[in-house]
Structure formats: C-alpha cells, structure tokens
C-alpha cells in the first residue's frame, strides 16, 4: 500500500513532468547555472582534490561530532551566547515560542533557514499570533503565495517576473512592472521598516566553527546581516551536523559552497557571528541564542553506511543536476529537503515506510554523486534505501516477483520458452498496445515496444554449434 506521500508524489510528478512550459523554464534556468558553475570550477587548480579535502574535513567533523559540538558550544557560550539543545522539532519550536513570549515580541524577521522549514516554525509562530516575515526575496515571494520553496537555494525559480509582479500587486498594492530590478526594490523598501521594528531575528547557519566558537552565514542579499544586526534578540537555528572543526576550513568551504550551489566564486556576504554584542561594540543584538537541532539526525548518524549524508552543506548542486528534479520540480517532493539529498535523508528523518518512494523515483544516473562538493555517495544511498525498504513487510510482493524472476533466469530453457511465448503474443499485443487493456501500459502510453528478434542470440549461437 503506497503511503499518502507516495501517492501525492506520483500525482504531482506525473503532472509536472508532462508540463512542457515548466520543463522549458526550469531547464533554461539551470543551463545558466551550469555555465557559471563550470567557469568557477575551472578556476580551481584542482577541483577534485578540493572535493576530497572537503569530504575528509566533513568526515572528521561528523565522525567526532560529540567532541566538536562540545568545543563549539563551550567557546560560543563563553561569550554570552545562550544555548539550547533540541532533541525534537517540537522542543525547538517551544523554545523559540517561549522566548518570543518572554520578550513580548510582536514582529519576528527571518533570514533563509531550511531548518526552520523542517520544524514548521513559521506556522507555529504565526499560529501563536506573531507576525513572521521572511526577508530573503525568494522566501518572501513563496511566503506570500503560501507555497513551499521550490528549491533549497532558489525558492522562487519556478516563477516568471510577470507572476511575481502580479503577486506583489495583489498582496502589497504595488504597481505592476516587468522589471526584476523594480520588483526587488519593492521588497527592499518594504523590508527596511521590518528590520528596524522586529523584536527577534531568526537565522540559520551554514557552518558552526568549533575551534573559535562561531557560526558562519552565507548569503548574497544582505538580509541575513540585517536580520542578525538590528533586532535586540537573535536566534540561530541549526542542525547538529553543521559543525566544522577549524576556522581555516572556511577558506575551502565558502568558495566550494558558492561554486557548487550558485556558480559564484564566493557569495556577497559571508559573516561569522560569535556572540551577542560585546561591551566594546557599538551595535548588535543584546541576546544571542543558538538552538541546536537533532530531530533524528542521530539516527542517520547511527547508520555508518549512510552517515556521510550528514556531510551535506546544503549547496543544492545535486538538485541542479538531477534529471528527475528538473522534470518534476522541487514542490512535488512534498517534504523540506528536495532532490537527491532529500530522497536520501528523508526516510531517516521522517520514516522509511512513508518516504521510500523518493528513493525509487530515480534512474540512478549518478550525476548527483559526481557533482557533490563533499563526495556524499548519493545515488548509491538511494540503492541502500531501496534495499532497506525491500526488507520491510510492504516489500514482500516485489520480493516474490523477483524470486520468480530469479527462478526463470537461472534456468535458460525456461527463459527461452518464455521468450518464444512472448514472441508469439506480441502481434496480439499490438492490437491493445497503449489502451486501458494493455498490461504494459506504463511503457506503451508513450513508447513503442521493441519487437522481439526473430532469432535470439542464443538461438543463433545454438545453430552455430551444429
């Protein structure tokens, strides 16, 4: 019995893969990215060596996670940062809700954090009566449309400027325009007031540096800098796996994140925050809170075969190259983390039974593994998930089918017999091909079936021996 999530995915993905306009739009977008990424990659003296180094650094961090997390929290805590360790999404949400209540907050401004999507923070805050504003342009757009982000890094890449203009006109009362620059300025103007009036700024973090006790935030717009500079209280929400051992590791990770994720040499702003405003500083939040989130990451950690999935730096490169993503779009996945990495980790974070279908929705082409800057064995993990899912009770039908298959192919006389029967029936099949009566409809709806050769190779070989 496929889960409801599997059914939804099948529906949405079927619909969107057939949508030629969507296909054309997304491929055009991604072509531009590929060109830029190639160019920046070629500037590296040795991109493959850089990948290996990044992979080793993340391996070190994740495989000594307890040590580095303790170092990170001790150091950042020593500078006045308040730390909260959340085992579950609920604990993380509750901490932030309680904090908002304690501070009598009314407005909360956020910069881009997928982790907050993961714990459904916005709904909880809005439900409790707080005004929550996404400051990142792409996130702001999908928030207005009440949609989930289309892509980890480019939340609104599926929309045309016309759609965005219409959206702003409707929700913000601005004049329609087809200039991306004017559209951006509309949001810039609106946000100015929000930064200043917000009581709490919530950000994510791309990395947590253990050696010096700092978080590192990568962005292009400057909204994260403002979100973490102006409000009196700053909360950073991050998964426990974000740790990097040394400050100098950023010299490798910042350009790799930018190159793989956005085809840029490095993004416009990479900021390192180590505490609330210090006594000799002129501005900055008075309080700085870090919420460290587990939410079943420790379960993925406990699987040594797939542990490297925790090395992910959320660059989105795997999404960009995935032929499935390109055709079904990020919103079809129905879960926070999309694309290959999402398909790998979601069964661990949200249950194998409900989410195994994402691992099947792949041709295992391996483009994701090839592009991953930290060498996560992505497409092989999809195979591992399939193996783990097949062992579940729900996999028994497929196991039985393959037992028959194995029986058949190990006995070539039987196999040849089946081939002859198929050859006989194929002319009949032509009559019903593609219709509702056709058992091969999954194939024949869009493709012709090849005719079985009048003489199979084994028949030819046998005749040669005579």
């Amino acid at each position, binding site marked *: 019995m496929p889960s409801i999530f599997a059914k939804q995915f099948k529906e949405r993905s079927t619909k969107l893969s057939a949508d030629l306009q969507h296909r054309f739009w997304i491929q055009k*977008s991604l072509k*531009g990215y590929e060109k830029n990424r190639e160019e920046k990659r070629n500037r590296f*003296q*040795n991109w*493959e*060596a*850089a990948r*290996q*180094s990044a992979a*080793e650094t993340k*391996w070190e961090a994740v*495989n*000594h*996670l*307890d040590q580095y*997390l303790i170092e990170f929290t001790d150091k950042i805590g020593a500078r006045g940062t308040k730390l909260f*360790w959340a*085992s579950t999404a609920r604990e993380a949400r509750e901490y932030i809700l309680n904090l908002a209540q304690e501070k009598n907050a009314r407005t909360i401004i956020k910069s881009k954090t997928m982790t907050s999507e993961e714990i459904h923070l916005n709904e909880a805050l809005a439900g409790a009566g707080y005004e929550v504003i996404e*400051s*990142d*342009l*792409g996130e702001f*757009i999908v928030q207005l449309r009440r949609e989930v982000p289309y892509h980890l890094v*480019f939340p609104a*890449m599926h*929309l045309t400027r016309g759609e965005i203009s219409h959206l702003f006109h409707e929700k913000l009362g601005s004049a329609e325009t087809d200039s*991306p620059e004017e559209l*951006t300025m509309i*949001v*810039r103007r609106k946000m100015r007031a929000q930064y200043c009036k917000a009581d709490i700024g919530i950000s994510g973090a791309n990395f947590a540096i253990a050696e010096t006790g700092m978080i590192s935030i990568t962005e292009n717009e*400057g*909204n994260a*800098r*403002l979100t*973490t*500079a102006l409000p009196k209280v700053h909360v950073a929400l991050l998964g426990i796996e974000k740790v990097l051992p040394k*400050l*100098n590791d*950023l*010299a*490798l990770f910042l*350009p790799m994140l930018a190159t793989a994720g*956005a085809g840029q040499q*490095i993004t*416009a*702003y990479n*900021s390192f925050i*180590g505490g609330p*405003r210090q006594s000799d*500083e*002129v*501005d*900055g939040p008075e309080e700085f809170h870090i919420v460290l989130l*587990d939410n079943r990451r*420790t379960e993925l*950690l*406990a699987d*040594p075969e797939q542990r490297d999935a925790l090395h992910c730096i959320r660059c989105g490169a795997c999404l960009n190259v995935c032929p499935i993503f390109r055709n079904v779009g990020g919103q079809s996945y129905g879960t926070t983390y999309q694309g290959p990495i999402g398909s790998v980790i979601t069964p661990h974070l949200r249950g194998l039974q409900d989410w195994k279908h994402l691992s099947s929705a792949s041709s295992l082409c391996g483009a994701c593994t090839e592009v991953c800057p930290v*060498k996560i064995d992505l497409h*092989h993990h999809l195979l591992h998930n399939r193996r783990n899912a097949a062992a579940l009770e729900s996999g028994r039908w497929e196991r039985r089918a393959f037992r028959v298959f194995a029986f058949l192919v190990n006995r070539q006389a039987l196999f040849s017999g089946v081939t002859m029967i198929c050859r006989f029936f194929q002319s009949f099949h032509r009559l019903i091909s593609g219709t509702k009566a056709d058992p091969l409809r999954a194939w024949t709806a869009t493709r012709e079936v090849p005719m079985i050769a009048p003489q199979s190779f084994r028949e030819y070989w046998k005749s040669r021996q005579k």
Partner: protein
Amino acid sequence: MSQREEIIGRIREALRLVAQSPGHRDAPDKNRPIGASPRDWLPSVPSDSESQIEAFARCSADLKTRFIQVNSLAEASAQVNKIGRAEGWNLVASHRAPILEEALSNIGLPVLYIENTNADPERADVGITGCDALVAQTGSILLTARSAGGRALSVLPPHHLVIARESQVIADLPAAFELLREIYGDNFPSFMTLITGPSRTGDIERIVVLGAHGPKTLTVILVKNH
C-alpha cells in the same frame, strides 16, 4: 540528564560503528596527495603586491565593485568628495578610525558617528568604513564590528565606501583567516564578515539585481604606498 547530555549520549552511541572513509569508491588519482594544503587547489593567486592589486581590480570589475587606486590620503579624500557630489549625498555615516579622519574632516557634509548614542545609519546616504584586509583572490573586503564601526554601518546605507591601505592587501582566503587570528588573537569581535561585491539577488528568473537589501553600491578606495 540534561538535553545536552541526551544528545551527546546519542551521538556517542551512534559513533561506536565506524563509517567508511571519504572517497573510498574513487580511483586513487582523484584524491589529493597527503600533506598538500588548500592553496594547492583553490584558485591560484600571484604573490607580489602589484599583481594582487590587479587581481583585486579584475574581481571588482566582475562584481561591479567600484575600485579606485589613489596615492595619498588627500587624494582619497578628494575622491570621496567627488563621489559624494555626483551622488548628491546629504548625510554620511561613519566611525572613528585614523584612516578615515582626513576624508571625513574634508567632506563638507554632516557626519553621523556610529559611536554616538542613538546613531541611526538608516538615514545616511553612505556608510564609510575602514576594514581589516582586501582579499586579492576573490575581490573581498574583510572587516569586523571592531574595524568597521559595528554590524549595521556597512550594510544599512545604500552605498558602502571603504578606505584601505596597500599594506592591507592580502593574497587569499586562507590568509584572511590567518590574519583574523593575528589581529584579534583569541578575543574575536562578535561579528566579522567577508564582503564580496554589492548586495545582489538572482531570485527573480535568475537575473542578477544589485542592492537587494544591502548596499547597491560598493566602493573601495585603495591608498597605495601606505
């Protein structure tokens, strides 16, 4: 047991099983030789100051950072005035730093010093700051809350203008992080940042628009032989 102890406990339990080392599927030639450093595979940078400045200039052109080289603080001051007149500045926000003194005293406009109580750089047309370094490899500016007047000054006004010395030009990102340790030791400011070009977004049809939230214009004035 505290929540921290719970999570650390689960981590330790999970790590009892050993994971395969990274890149174990790859052919050995895809892996880097042991003992090599990131500098061996990051984009290469020339080692002499003049070439590094050229590299910074090239990056700036790509990024749309306005990069101006001058020979003295007096010239820098003149450039600042020129830009200010062209852009029609009414109010300048800045902070107290020796390298900025000359330019600010000759600017002929009201200057809002961030050190003053209740200083609000939001109303300013430009934020003028110093910095810790200029990174040739990427065309980046390294600055902190201590070297550049706090967190907001360099990001809130629509124009960010930096005055830097030639001796502040460094080669690459590894050098930037080494420098931070040299300057600050263990006592880091709460905020440090690498600024590379004006603020930008590609969120609308992947078309690059400058000035999304941070400054639309970024100017770097390099005082040579200083």
